[in-house]
C-alpha cells in the first residue's frame, strides 16, 4: 500500500480504495492528528497485521503502532490502563474468535469503567475486530460475535459495510470519549469503491438508507449489506421494489430511521450473518414488532446464519446469508397479489 495523502484535507479528492485501505487511512490520519493515539495488537507492527490493515503505520509512527505479547486479555487490559493514563489506544483483535480471551476485560472493565466511576474515568479506546466468514477460513476465524458486545451496556458497536463508512466510522470511534467496538467486515476488506473521504458521513448512531424502495425494507449491517443490495437488484427484475437500510451503528441503534423506513413499506426483513437465536437481529426484529406493529402487513422475517457453530470452509456456503434466502423471506411477507 503506497502512502496516501491525509483525508483531513478539505480538498475534494475522489479515489477508488478498499475497505482495508480506508481503515488504514483512518488510523494513519488519527495518528498524525493526535499524538495520544496508539495502535497495539498481535502482528500489527512490522508485518502490518495479518490482513495488512496497519500496513506502514510502524514505519511512519514507530512505537506508536506496536506488537504486543500474544495474549488478548493482556492486550485489552493494557489498553484500558493506557486509556486511564491519558492515551487513545486502538486495539486490533486478530480475528473475531481470538477476542474471547479478552471477554472479561471487555465486558467487566471496558464497558463498565465510566459507569462505575460516575464518569470520572472514561476509556476513549477502540477495539477493532475483523468478523464474519465467507473467506474460506478454518474454525475460530469466522465468527460473527457482535451480539456479545451489543448485549453489553457501555459498549458502542459499529459495523461498516463500505470504504467510506469504514474510514469515517473508525475516525469517529477514535474521537469518541467512549470505548467503541468496530466490527470490520473481513470478507469486504478487499472490496473497492470510489469515495471522496473529504465528504462527511453520518456519525455513530445513524443508519443510512442505501437503496430506496417502496415494497419492503431489508435491514442489514456489515458484510450482509452487499448481499441485501444484490437481492434488491434481483428483486427489481422480478418486479419488487426493495428498500435497503444499512444500520452502520448497532449501538446506539437508530430506531428513528429504521422505524420510519419500515413504516413506509409495511414489510421488513432483517439480515445478519450471525446465528439468529438470541442475537442482534432478534433485537432489531423485536423493536420493529414493538414499534411498527400497526404499520406492518406481515410478520417481521429474519435471514440469519443457522444456529450451529460456524461451518468448515467447504460447507460454509450452506450457512452464509444468500440472495436466495433473502428473496425467499421477502416472498413470504404475505403479499396481496399471492
Amino acid at each position, binding site marked *: 500500500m503506497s502512502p496516501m495523502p491525509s483525508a483531513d484535507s478539505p480538498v475534494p479528492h475522489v479515489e477508488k480504495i478498499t475497505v482495508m485501505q480506508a481503515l488504514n487511512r483512518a488510523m494513519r490520519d488519527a495518528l498524525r492528528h493526535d499524538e495520544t493515539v496508539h495502535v497495539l495488537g498481535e*502482528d500489527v507492527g512490522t508485518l502490518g497485521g495479518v490482513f495488512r490493515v496497519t500496513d506502514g503505520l510502524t514505519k511512519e509512527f514507530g512505537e506508536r503502532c506496536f506488537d*504486543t505479547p500474544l495474549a488478548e486479555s493482556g492486550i485489552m487490559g493494557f489498553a484500558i490502563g493506557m486509556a486511564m493514563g491519558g*492515551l487513545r489506544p486502538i486495539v486490533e483483535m486478530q480475528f473475531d474468535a481470538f477476542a474471547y480471551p479478552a471477554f472479561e476485560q471487555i465486558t467487566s472493565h471496558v464497558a463498565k469503567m465510566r459507569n462505575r466511576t*460516575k464518569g470520572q474515568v472514561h476509556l476513549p479506546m477502540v477495539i477493532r475486530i475483523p468478523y464474519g466468514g465467507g473467506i474460506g*477460513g478454518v474454525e475460530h476465524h469466522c465468527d460473527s460475535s457482535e451480539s456479545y458486545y451489543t448485549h453489553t451496556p457501555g459498549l458502542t458497536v459499529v459495523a461498516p459495510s463500505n470504504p467510506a463508512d469504514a474510514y469515517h466510522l473508525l475516525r469517529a470511534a477514535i474521537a469518541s470519549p467512549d470505548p467503541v467496538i468496530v466490527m470490520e467486515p473481513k470478507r469486504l476488506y478487499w472490496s473497492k469503491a470510489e469515495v471522496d473521504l473529504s465528504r462527511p458521513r453520518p456519525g455513530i448512531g445513524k443508519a443510512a438508507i442505501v437503496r430506496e424502495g417502496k415494497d419492503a425494507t431489508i435491514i442489514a449491517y456489515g458484510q450482509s449489506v452487499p448481499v441485501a443490495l444484490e437481492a434488491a437488484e434481483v428483486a427489481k427484475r422480478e418486479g419488487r421494489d426493495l428498500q435497503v437500510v444499512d444500520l452502520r451503528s448497532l449501538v446506539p441503534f437508530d430506531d428513528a430511521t429504521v422505524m420510519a423506513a419500515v413504516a413506509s413499506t409495511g414489510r421488513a426483513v432483517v439480515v445478519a450473518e450471525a446465528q439468529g437465536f438470541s442475537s442482534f437481529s432478534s433485537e432489531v426484529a423485536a423493536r420493529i414488532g414493538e414499534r411498527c406493529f400497526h404499520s406492518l402487513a406481515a410478520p417481521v422475517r429474519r435471514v440469519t446464519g443457522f444456529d450451529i457453530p460456524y461451518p468448515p470452509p467447504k460447507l460454509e456456503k450452506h450457512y452464509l446469508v444468500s440472495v*436466495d434466502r433473502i428473496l425467499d423471506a421477502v416472498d413470504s411477507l404475505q403479499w396481496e397479489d399471492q
Partner: protein
Amino acid sequence: MNCRQTSPNPDGTLMTPRQPRTAPTRAAEPPAERPAYDLADAHLLPTPEPIQLVTPEGSPVADPRLPMPDTDTLVRAHDLMVQGRRFNDQAHALVRQGRLAVYPSSHGQEACQVAAAMVLEDQDWLFPTYRDTVAAMVKGVDPVQILLLLAGDWHAGYDPYAHCCAPTATPLATQLVHAAGVGYAARVKGERTVVVAMCGDGATSEGDFHEALNFAAVFKAPVIFLVQNNEFAISVPLSRQTAAPSLAAKAIGYGMPGKRVDGNDVAALLAVLGEAVDRARAGEGPTLVEAHTYRMQAHTNADDATRYRSSEAVKEWEPRDPILRSQAHLLSLGAIDDEHATALTQRVEEMAAEMRLGMSAERELDPTVLFDHVFATPTPQLREQRAQLLDELAREEAAK
C-alpha cells in the same frame, strides 16, 4: 430454494485470509546470543528467606540486607497501621450493624497496606483490591467514600484521579493488567509516575496475573506487583494455588526481580518496596514482591473460617502482629511514648466516629444516575428507559 444467485459470494469472489493465525506469520527471529540459562539472571531469584529488618519481638535484625528506613518514617508507618487497624475493626462492626453489606478485612495485614501506599508520591498510582481499603485510605482516599461500594451506594465511591487510586478491584488480577497499561502510558508520556498493583496469593493463579507481569516486563513498565500472600484464597490454601518454590520465584520467568519480604514487618516492606519504586522510577522496569503475611480473620463477615483452618493456626500468627512489632521496636528506640499513644488513639477514634457518622447518614440516592454514566451521551434507548423509570416513580409518589 430457487437458484437466482450466480456467484458464491455477493462480490463474486471467494476470499481467503492471506495470513490466518494457524499459518506461520512471523519471520524467524535471529537466534539470541545467550546461553539457555544465564547465571547472570540468578539475581532475579528471591532470597531463600523473606527479608526482615525487625524481628517479631521488635529487635533490629543483625545483618540487614537493606538499610533501615529512618525513624520518622517508621513512626508515621506505625501511626498509619494503628489507624488502619481501627479502620478495619470499625468497618467490621459496621457490617454487624447492617450499614455495610460485607467487609473483607485486612486485619493483621496492615503493614502491607500502609507500606504499599507510603512508598508512593502523589502522582503515583495505586491499584488496590477489595481487601486493600486501608491502602486506599493511606493513598488519601476518604474512608467513608471507600466504603460506599460495600454500603451499596455505588460501585466506586471515589474519584480515582483525585488521589491516583484505582477503584478497589473485585475480580481477581484483572486490575494488574490495567496497572501495567497505566505504567506504560506514563513511560510514553515521559512522566515520573510509578504504579503499585496489589493482589493476593489466590490471584496469582489467574491468567491476567501472568499477562500483567509479562506485559510489564516486556515494556519495562514502572510497576511494582505486591502479592500479599496471606495463605488463603477464601478457603483454599496456597498449596492449591501453586507448586512453585515461592510466588516471588515466578518473577524470573518474566525477567524481573522477585523479592520475598516479611509481610508483617513494615520496616522491611518500606525498604523493599521503596527500592523497587526507585528502580521503576529510574526506568529499570517492574518488580514482583511477595509479602508473607496471614489473614487473621475470615475472608469476609459472611465466611466461616473454622470450616477450613484451626484456631491454633491463627493463634500462631498473633505474636507476629505487625503493630505489636513496630510498637516494640519504636518504644525501644524511644521514638514513641505514652503521650504519643494517647494522641494517636484520639486521632483514630475521631476517624472511627466519622466513619460511623458517614455510614449512618441517610444518603439520598437518585435512581436516574443509573442511566447517566453508561455512555458520555445517553443513547436514545437509555433516554426512553430513564423517562420510563421517572414515570414509574412519579406514579408511585402519586399513589402514596
